[in-house]
C-alpha cells in the first residue's frame, strides 16, 4: 500500500500550485481553475486520510466539497461571463471599481 505521506505531499503540492496560480495569474478563468485545483487538493487529502484511518467521514466531506464546487462553478462562471460581456476583458487587474 502507498504510504499516506505520498498523498499528503501530493495534496500539499497541488494546493500550493493552486495558491500560486490564484495569486499570480491575472486571467479570471485561470484563477477559477486554481481554486478548483485547491479544492481538489483538499479532496485528495480527505480521501487519503479517510482511507488511512478507515473512516467514512472524510469521503462524505469530499462529496460535499464536490457539490459546493459545482454550485460555485455555476455561479462563478456566470459572473465571469457577465464580466467578460461588460468589460471585454478577463484581466482581474481591471476589475477594480471598489478601489479608492
Amino acid at each position: 500500500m502507498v504510504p499516506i505521506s505520498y498523498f499528503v505531499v501530493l495534496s500539499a503540492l497541488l494546493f500550493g500550485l493552486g495558491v500560486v496560480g490564484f495569486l499570480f495569474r491575472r486571467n479570471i478563468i485561470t484563477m477559477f481553475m486554481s481554486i478548483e485545483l485547491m479544492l481538489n487538493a483538499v479532496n485528495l487529502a480527505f480521501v487519503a486520510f479517510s482511507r488511512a484511518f478507515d473512516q467514512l467521514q472524510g469521503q462524505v466531506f469530499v462529496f460535499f466539497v464536490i457539490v459546493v464546487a459545482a454550485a460555485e462553478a455555476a455561479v462563478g462562471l456566470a459572473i465571469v461571463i457577465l464580466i467578460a460581456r461588460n468589460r471585454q476583458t478577463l484581466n482581474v487587474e481591471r476589475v477594480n471599481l471598489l478601489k479608492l
Partner: protein
Amino acid sequence: MFLLEHLWIIPALPLLGAALNGIVLRRQAHAVVNTVALGSTALAFASALELFREFSALAPTSIPWGENFFPWIWAGDFRADYALQVDQLTMVMLLVVTGVGFLIHIYSTGYMEHDGGYGRFFCYLNLFMFFMLTLVLAANYVLLFVGWEGVGLCSYLLVGFWFHKKSATDAGNKAFWVNRVGDFGFLLGMFMIFRNFGSLDFARVLPAAAGAPADPAGHFGTFTWIALALMTGACGKSAQLPLYVWLPDAMEGPTPVSALIHAATMVTAGVYVVARSHIIFLHSPIAMAVVGVIGCVTALFAATIALVQTDIKKVLAYSTVSQLGYMFLACGAGAFSAGIFHLMTHAFFKALLFLAAGSVIHAMGGEQDMRKMGGLRKQIPWTYWTMLIATLAIAGVPGFSGFFSKDAILSAAFLSPYGGKILWAIGAVTVLLTAFYMFRLIFLTFFGKAEYDEHQIHVHESPNNMLVPLVILAVLSVIGGWQAAPALWGGENHFEHYLAPVFADAASAMEPSTSAMNAHSIEQQLTLVALILAALGFFIAWWLCIKNPKLRDTLAETFSTPYRILVGKYFVDELYAGAIVRPLLWSSTNVLWHGVDEGLIDGTVNGVAHLTGETGDRVRHVESGNTRSYASWMVLGAVVFTSLLLWLAVH
C-alpha cells in the same frame, strides 16, 4: 381670618400683575399696563392692611401665625415646604414693602411715561414686589432664600433696564456678582443651620437655638460661624463693607428703582435676616461685635464718600449705604427693634429723597450733576419742600421720623452691653456728616444761582402722579417715627413695644448696665449731643455752600490728598479690580479657558477624534479594492493561522 388662612394671596397678586404685563398684555397702552400693575400692587397693599387688622385680633399665643401650603422639597431628612408665616416683624415689613412699593408704582407712571419699555418696567417692578413679599413672609430659610435671590434678579434686571447703555449693563452685572459673594455665605449659613438643627423652618430652628447654650465670649463656636455666614449674605444684599461696591453703581437704573429696591426695600433684606435670626446672633458675642463694627464703620465710611460726590443720586446712594450701616449698628448693639424702626423710617425718607431727586432730574431734563443745578427751589416748589422734609428727617431734626429712629440706635449703641462708647462716637460723627452732605445737596440743588443754561433747559415741575407720592411720603417722613415719641419723656416706645414679642430674647439679654432713671438721663444727654452735631453739620454745609462757596475750592486745594481720596471713593473699586477682578479674569482666561477647557477637555475630545481619524486614514489603504490583494491577505492569514496551529501542536 380669610387672609391669615390664605397668606399666599399677598405675594400672588403682584406675581399675577407681572405675568399679565410680561406675558399676556405685551405692548399694550399705558392705561392697561397701569391698571394691571397699580391694581395688583394696590390690592396687595389693601390685603396687607386687612391682614394687619386680622393679625391684631389674634391671641398672642398663636403668633407667629404660620400656614403650610404645600410640600416643596423633601429629600431624606430634609424638608422645605411652601410655608408662610406672620409675626410683628413680618407685619412691619409687609406694610412698608407694599405701602412704599405702591407709592413708587404711582410715581413711576409719571417718571417712565416716555420710556419705550413701559410695560417691561412694570412687569419687573411687580415681579420684584412678589419676591420681596415672599422674602418677608417665608417661614423657612429656603423659601426666604428664593425671595432673596428673586429680588436680586429683579435688581439686576432693573439696574440694567436701559440695556443699550454699557454702563447700565455693567452695573447690573456688578450688582449680581457682588451679591453672589454674599449669597455664598448665606448658603453656607443655611447648610450649617440644617446640620446643627436638622431643619430650616424658623419655627423649629429659632426655639432650638434659644434653648442651646450660647458660644462663650471670644470663642468661635457653632453659633458664631452660622451668624458670620449669614452676616456675609447680609453684607452683600445690604451693601455693607466690604461688599457695598455694587450699590452706588446700581444708580444706573431708573430712579424709581433706586428708590424702591436700592433704598427702601431690597437692601434692607439683610437687616431683616439678621433681625429674623437674632437669636443666633445673640448667642455669639463675636458675631454681635462683628455686626456692630461693620455697621458702624460702614456708616462712617460711606458718609465720608458722600461728602464730596457731585452726582445727586450718588450722594443718596452712599447715604443709603451709610444709613444701612446704622441699622446694622443697631442690630450689633442688640437693639433689633431700633434697627427695624430705622429700616421703616429710612424707607419713608430715603424713598422720598430718591423720588424727589428723580423729580429734580426730570425737571432738569436728565441732568444729575448738582454743580450744574442751583436755584431750583422757586421753579419746583413741591419737589423742594418734600425733599427738604426728607432731608430734615434723615439729618435727625427733632419731630421728624429719622430723629426718633436714629436716637434709638445711638442710645442703644451707647448703653447696650454689646455696644460701646466708640461705636456711639463713630455713629455720632456720622450724624454730623449726614447733616452736612444732605444740606450740601439741598443747597447746591435748590439754592444759589442757576448754574445751567436757562435757554437750553426749561425747568418744569413734575406732573401730579409724581408729586402725590412725594407728598404722602413727606407726611410719612414726618409722622413715621412718632410711635417712639413718648420714649423721649420717659414713656413707652410703642414701636419697640409692638415688636417686643419677636425680640423677647434680645430684651432679656439687654439688661441695662445702669439703672433705668440713670439710663434715661444719659439718653437725653446723648440726644442733645447728636442734635448739636447735626446742627453743626447743617451750619458747615451752609457756610461752605451759601455763605462762602469759594472756601470749598480752597479747602479742596489745601487738603488735596484727602480730597482726592474721597472723590476717588477710597479707590476701593480700583483695589478690587487689581486684587480680585483682574487676577480672576487672568486665571479664568489663561488657566481655565485656554488651559483646562481648550487644552484638557477640548484636547481630550478632539484628540480621541483625531486619533480615530488618523488610524482610519492609515488603515483604509488595506482595502485596495484589488481582488488579488484580498486573496494575498487571505493566504497570508491562512499561513499565519496554520503556523500558529503547528506551533501549538509542536509545543
